[in-house]
Structure formats: C-alpha cells, structure tokens
C-alpha cells in the first residue's frame, strides 16, 4: 500500500462522482449503457464475495471463512440488518477457528 495508490484512487473515485453529478448530469446516456452500468455492483461485488471467501494469495482455499460467510449470506437473505450480517460472519468464523474445526 503506497501514498501513490491512495491519491490515484482518490482522483479516480472523485472523477467518477463529478462526471455523473456535475459534468453529464441531466443528459441521457444510451439505455443499453445505463442498463449495463446498473449491473456493475451485482457482477463485481458477487465476484468480490467469491474472491474474499474462497481464495488466499491467488489460490483457491477452503477454510473457516466459508462457514462464516455462508451463515451471514443466510442472514442477509432473511433481511438481517447490515451490521448483524457482518458481526455474524466474524463471530461464526472465529468460533469455528477457536474449536479447531477449520483453519
């Protein structure tokens, strides 16, 4: 992690926000572009869930995280609040590790 990375990210993130709200705000984009952009969170965040649950250092790994995130996903599906989902995942993962059931 470097300062260059922090500032580059900050510039890009703010750039996108200003682009939408100030620069092209009010104008219409082609419907197909808006539909695809609207699906970015669904596709990318789903991938992040898989990546952060099932991999470590570029390898597929099965460990205690799977149990914690699995229970948390069930809680999210049952409409548990945001904080509860996170706390459940951490608690379940910690318990599975504490009992030595999985690394």
């Amino acid at each position: 992690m470097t300062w260059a990375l922090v500032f580059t990210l900050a510039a890009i993130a703010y750039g996108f926000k200003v682009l939408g709200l100030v620069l092209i705000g009010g104008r219409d984009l082609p419907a197909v572009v808006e539909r695809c952009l609207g699906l970015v969170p669904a596709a990318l965040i789903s991938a992040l869930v898989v990546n952060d649950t099932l991999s470590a250092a570029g390898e597929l790994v099965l460990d205690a995280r799977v149990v914690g995130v699995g229970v948390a996903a069930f809680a999210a599906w049952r409409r548990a609040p945001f904080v509860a989902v996170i706390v459940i995942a951490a608690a379940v993962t910690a318990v599975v590790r504490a009992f030595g059931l999985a690394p």
Partner: protein
Amino acid sequence: MTTAAAVANGRSPTAACIVLGAAVGVFGVAFGVGAVSAGATVAMTCAMSLLVFTGASQFSAVSVIAGGGSATSAIAGASLLAARNAVYGLTMSRRLRGPLILRMAAAQLTIDESTAMATSQTDDASMTKAFWLTGLSVYVFWNLGTLAGALIGTAIDPARFGLDAAFPAGFVAMVAPHLSHPTGRRAGLIGAGVCLATIPVLPVGLPILCASVGILVGVRRP
C-alpha cells in the same frame, strides 16, 4: 414521507439516515483493521476513507493488495466499482440543483447509501434532505470507524476474531439488494462464476476485472 407515514414506519426518515450512517461506521472499523493488516499506515488508511470515500472500491483495493496483487490491478478493480457512482450522480443530478460549489461537495457524498436513501423518498424536498443527511452521516461515521479500526488493527490478529470474514460478509450485505431482480441475479452469478474459474490461473485482482463481463446481460432489453 409524511409524518403519519414516518410514524407508521416506526422511525423518522432523519433517524433512519443517522442509524444507517452509524451502521456503516461499524463496517469502517473492519476497513481500518483490514487496511492496516494489508500494510497501509494509519495515515494512509484514514486518507483513503476521507478522500476516496466509496466503501466497495476501498475494500476491493485493500483485498487485492493484501492478496499480493499489483497496484495496477488494485486500481483497475477499484475503479470499475467506483464507476457506478457516476451512475448514481446521473440519478441524483435530476434533483440536486444549486451552485457549482455545492454540487462539487455533493459529488463526494454520492455513494450507495445516500443515493438509496434519497431515491426511496417520495418528494423532491425530502429527497434532497435524505441525500445530504445520509451522505454526511455516513461520511462522519465511516471516517471515525476507519480511524478506530486502523488504531486497533495492528494490535490484534484479524483472523482470530474472524475479521477476514467480515470483508466478504459486508460485500454480501451490499450486493443483496442488487440481486433482487432476475437480471441482477444473472449478472451476479456470471461474475461469481468467472471469478471462481479464473482465481487459480490469473494474477490476484484480475479475476475481479474479468467478472465484469457479467454486466453484458444488460445488453438485452428486459
């Protein structure tokens, strides 16, 4: 929302905006712990939350770096996630009018939570109020949470408290509303599948980028 509707809902919109901000603050703690464990200093971690201020991108960048990925792939993945704020900006620009300086400030607060809260209101005045209130409340709590997490981050082993599972669980909570319609579910399934298939063969960070092919399900008319 009318007073009667607010009472019927059990809480006022103002309270809902502030509670949402506080909830995001807890997630900020997880971000602080994660960033410091990935090698960021306390100052870098706080600067990231103050300046970047878009949770999913920050988490994504940190998880790529923590996994040993390059800065380029960290920035590429985080940028794709940040791009959706441009779409939120487009949505909000129809309601947020006023001097340029005010809109430049509003831009920094244009994120998932503020847009979601604003778009769930019924009239323009409460929409603007919900946007600013949620945006400012999330900004304050997210940064306080980040600072707290960064300070305790080096003192504990995140894995022992299951904090490495807090990251993906936060993503689960964030993605859930996007999977409530069939097109979103298809995009999510493709994204997750592509990521899973490419993890063993591609450098860290790239599987997240490849997952963006999932958005192409939007090409077909609903």
